[in-house]
């Protein structure tokens, strides 16, 4: 597959021919189920779009039955930015319902396969975007990351996935899951393409009041030769699988030989991250998903009165995992439990944010696993609590609002990709991309 950088220099005629061939290839690989369907807007470079980002006149359903029949009435800000930079939304990709999941198994459209091995999950929730890029069926894609939903599927599928600092990319037109955690980000074949796509989608937007209103760009200053101080977390990775530990050691060696300084640091037990995350995310999700009542959009299941219509619509429209999180969110917000759960989780977020700030007093970047293992097989994460535990290395980044980039480091003995992430200070995407570029060169994964 050509890279995004290469594709940006193609003529309109070449791009139209390329897109016809790409459409055929996608149809020939139906069993992967990375795409829900393929539509095209304009004559630019094709970019695959996660099914929770509004593209005007497209059916955009967040992988849910409840949004069947909904047609997006406007473009998300990121889609406007793609179009004005010569890119075309091209196909919508599969995802866990309302981005709630780590495997893409909870989609209304069925599961997506891992392009490396069809018995394994592609990760989630942006599993369709990751599988499309990993299988050579997309030049690049957009995903969204609330607790690792870009970085984890990127790691499982052997591609690059980047979560920007909270506020860097407008959330206008992103189907809301947890508003204080959600960010849209690029999923690409390499680090440079991620930087290019990040520069295109980031920037100020008056339609999102949490936007950081910053317009600096990273590509003009990309520099893989900068010597950085990088924190490693020996104790934090103790419970990760041997594959992850091997990749971690390989990455440290590559970073050292590239001239970076490695500094050992510690972080508190990540079990608290999981608690703070699942309380915060479900509380926000409960509120955000209250709008799906069958009245204004999507799918309505009539009842004998209004209340029964709400209940029937929601009970038939939402899948099991979404229902679980709505119930949990209402629990942590309900009177009698609010202080002990929701408020306690917000206090914990301060502790997590300060812990990162303290580490960043001494270093430029942190090297961390993305997931505790390589992509599991289908069905292995059937127990919800087990699935939540698998988010252990990604969610604190969202809770603290930091930028992070997941990139492939090696393959394990079964040929499955092992990815790791670099984490940077808020708004320091430049250092994140510079360090990632250096690590990418050093580990020489080189599948594309």
């Amino acid at each position: 597959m050509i890279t995004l950088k290469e594709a940006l220099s193609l003529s309109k005629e070449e791009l139209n021919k390329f897109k016809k061939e790409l459409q055929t290839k996608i149809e020939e690989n139906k069993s992967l189920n990375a795409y829900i369907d393929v539509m095209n807007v304009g004559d630019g470079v094709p970019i695959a779009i996660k099914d929770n980002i509004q593209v005007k006149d497209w059916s955009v359903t967040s992988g849910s039955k409840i949004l069947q029949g909904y047609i997006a009435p406007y473009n998300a800000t990121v889609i406007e930015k793609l179009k004005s930079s010569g890119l075309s939304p091209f196909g919508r990709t599969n995802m866990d319902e309302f981005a709630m999941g780590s495997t893409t198994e909870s989609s209304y459209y069925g599961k997506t396969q891992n392009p490396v091995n069809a018995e394994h999950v592609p990760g989630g929730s942006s599993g369709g975007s990751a599988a499309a890029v990993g299988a050579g069926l997309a030049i690049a894609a957009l995903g969204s990351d609330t607790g690792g939903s870009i970085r984890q599927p990127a790691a499982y599928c052997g591609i690059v996935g980047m979560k920007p600092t909270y506020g860097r990319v407008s959330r206008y037109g992103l189907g809301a899951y947890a508003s204080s955690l959600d960010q849209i980000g690029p999923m690409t074949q390499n680090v440079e393409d991620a930087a290019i796509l990040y520069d295109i989608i980031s920037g100020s937007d008056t339609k999102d009041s949490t936007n950081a209103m910053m317009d600096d760009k990273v590509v003009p200053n990309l520099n893989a030769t900068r010597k950085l101080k990088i924190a490693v977390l020996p104790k934090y990775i103790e419970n990760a699988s041997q594959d992850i530990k091997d990749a971690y050691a390989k990455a440290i060696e590559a970073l050292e030989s590239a001239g970076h300084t490695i500094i050992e640091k510690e972080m508190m037990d990540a079990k608290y991250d999981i608690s703070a995350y699942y309380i915060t995310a479900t509380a926000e999700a409960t509120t955000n998903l209250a709008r799906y009542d069958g009245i204004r959009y999507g799918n309505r299941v009539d009842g004998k009165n209004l209340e029964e219509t709400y209940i029937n619509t929601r009970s038939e429209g939402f899948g099991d995992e979404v229902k679980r999180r709505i119930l949990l969110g209402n629990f942590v917000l309900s009177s009698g439990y609010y202080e002990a759960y929701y408020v306690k989780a917000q206090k914990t977020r301060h502790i997590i944010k300060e812990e990162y700030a303290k580490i960043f007093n001494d270093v430029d970047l942190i090297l961390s696993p993305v997931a505790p293992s390589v992509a599991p097989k289908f069905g292995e994460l059937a127990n919800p609590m087990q699935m939540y535990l698998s988010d252990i290395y990604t969610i604190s980044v969202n809770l603290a609002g930091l930028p992070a980039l997941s990139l492939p480091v090696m393959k394990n003995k079964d040929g499955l990709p092992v990815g790791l992430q670099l984490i940077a200070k808020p708004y320091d995407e430049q250092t994140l991309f510079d360090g990632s570029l250096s690590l990418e060169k050093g580990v020489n994964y080189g599948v594309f």
Partner: protein
Amino acid sequence: MQVDDALLTKLEKLSFLHVSDDKREEIVSQLSEIVSFVDNLSELDTKGVDDTFAMSDRATPLREDIPSSNPSISEEILKHAPNSADNFFIVPKIIE
């Protein structure tokens, strides 16, 4: 903490959701497992920590108050709504 069937009934009401009889037991046990896990936060000393959290320490940004409207968005939404007429959404009878 254990979640029981009475609490599930209360949460269903708050959530406008109905959990079918064959799934109740499973959901009660899953919610109990999750809530028991997140109880670990009580081990953390958070005395004196701010009880609200915002992603940015900056104030909400201000902009010029220039009115703008895109009527095509509401037209499109009404056109694709489950039931609508004369610029209104139609809902089942509210007053018995």
